[in-house]
């Protein structure tokens, strides 16, 4: 027994699901961006192709957004830096991502999925969950439904997807990872212990490097071992997350498939930027933050939200990251106030930045209220009428002419201003 388990000697009881029996399908497109490009650009078929997120393909900046299966054989996958990819695969084809094209294909994919159920959750640009509990009988068994869906995607889009079928979202998602590409895996509830026990803990969606390290420290490396861990210990060590993880080890996940039209509760608006080798130039980082605040607050205004708390996230070198948050003192959806506060948080970390350059910065606005949802915001909220008027004009220009139609002077050419810290990857969270 692991020393960490001592004091929690009672045999763990199997947690129980609170929801009725369901059948959920998880659809995951195979090497999505690269497959779309290989389909449309036949000269790249059966060759290592890397779709990159970068502003300059001739440089070594940016990251690989998707790697074709031919490229993956050489150990290059999404998230690899372009520098590393070019060292490993100097003769591969490198192209910049065309996200408009991928979104178009995603819309077509979702239209196909909608034929199989009205309970469809768009999980990401290349993933979706379908609750087919009520509709599977129209297509035969759940396996028949999944096979039919997979075949239709292949025929209509000329793209392959891997499909997992399970009693909930967690199991369906893990099942879709079992066989790739073009795999179809059905995991029945009664098969769960055998299927899951030997898998490493990081197979559970959401268990990343850091959580794996924490679990490793208490002797938990496999899902089977996680299931054996006393629930009290998990709760004590990891709080609510520990409880969820322990349930996950038994394949229990009560989260519903939330149809996108019903909308999930929005908790935050944020944006982040990877900075390649990193930057310690505080002035440059403050400008980057301004761009991120612009992006995040534009989305807030579009969705009609006001926020009251700002958080700044900074990756220092390759080893450390920190997150700092503070209140705004009012609700706002304007970039100026959010940036002022975010900048203040960043400047407090100046000493750390001198030691470790920032390799990624992010900003998020939380503590949200919906504009006009009945809750009264105070007279101090959205303070700057001039800025609100400018933001409204900028929004109208962007709505009419596109996101690149107008930008701040201070952000022009920002990607070239710091050679060590180019625009590499913008993430929205």
């Amino acid at each position: 027994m692991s020393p960490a388990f001592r004091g929690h000697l009672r045999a763990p009881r199997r947690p129980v699901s609170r929801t009725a029996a369901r059948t959920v399908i998880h659809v995951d497109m195979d090497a999505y961006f690269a497959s779309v490009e290989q389909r449309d650009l036949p000269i790249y078929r059966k060759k290592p192709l890397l779709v990159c997120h970068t502003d300059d393909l001739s440089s070594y900046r940016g990251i690989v957004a998707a790697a074709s299966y031919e490229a993956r054989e050489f150990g290059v996958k999404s998230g690899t830096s372009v520098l590393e990819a070019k060292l490993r695969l100097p003769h591969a084809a490198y192209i910049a991502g065309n996200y408009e094209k991928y979104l178009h294909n995603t819309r077509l994919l979702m239209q196909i999925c909608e034929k199989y159920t009205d309970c469809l959750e768009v999980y990401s640009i290349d993933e979706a969950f379908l609750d087919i509990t009520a509709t599977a009988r129209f297509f035969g068994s759940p396996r028949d439904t999944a096979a039919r869906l997979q075949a239709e995607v292949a025929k209509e889009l000329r793209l392959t997807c891997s499909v997992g079928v399970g009693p909930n979202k967690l199991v369906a998602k893990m099942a879709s990872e079992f066989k790739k590409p073009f795999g179809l895996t059905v995991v029945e509830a009664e098969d769960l212990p055998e299927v899951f026990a030997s898998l490493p803990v990081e197979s559970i969606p959401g268990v990343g490097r850091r959580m794996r390290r924490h679990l490793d420290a208490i002797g938990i490396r496999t899902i089977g071992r996680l299931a054996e861990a006393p629930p009290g210990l998990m709760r004590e060590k990891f709080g609510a997350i520990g409880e969820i993880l322990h349930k996950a080890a038994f394949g229990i996940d009560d989260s519903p498939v939330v149809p996108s039209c019903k909308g999930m509760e929005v908790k935050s608006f944020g944006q982040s930027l990877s900075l390649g080798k990193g930057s310690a130039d505080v002035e440059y980082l403050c400008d980057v933050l301004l761009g991120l605040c612009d992006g995040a607050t534009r989305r807030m205004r579009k969705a009609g939200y006001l926020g009251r708390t700002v958080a700044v996230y900074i990756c220092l070198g390759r080893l450390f990251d920190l997150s700092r948050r503070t209140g705004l003192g009012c609700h706002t959806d304007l970039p100026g106030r959010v940036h002022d506060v975010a900048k203040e948080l960043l400047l407090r970390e100046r000493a750390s930045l001198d030691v470790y350059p920032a390799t990624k910065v992010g900003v998020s606005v939380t503590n949200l209220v919906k504009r006009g949802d009945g809750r009264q915001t105070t007279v101090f909220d959205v303070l700057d009428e001039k800025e609100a008027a400018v933001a409204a004009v900028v929004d109208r220009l962007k709505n009419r002419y596109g996101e690149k139609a107008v930008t701040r002077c201070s952000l022009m050419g920002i990607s070239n201003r710091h050679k060590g810290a180019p625009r590499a990857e913008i993430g929205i969270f």
Partner: protein
Amino acid sequence: MAVDVHEPIEVSAVFVRGRLKPVSFMWSRRHHKISEITGVYKYSAGASACYGYTVRVGDDLYEISLNTGEMAWRLERMHGCESGV
């Protein structure tokens, strides 16, 4: 490797069964006859609907786009022999 171009071009196109099909285009004072359309997608640039086409000319592939708001065609990228692949 792909080469970014982003230049306006003149395109001849026909409507076939309600769909717009580019047939040829002029670029760099040369006439390029399209032999195959390998991909089409739709997107929006602000309020304008745009269409992206991937077309084959000989052994080369070109990505062209139509902005229906401006009624203007552009050559966005090229892939293949001419681009040095």
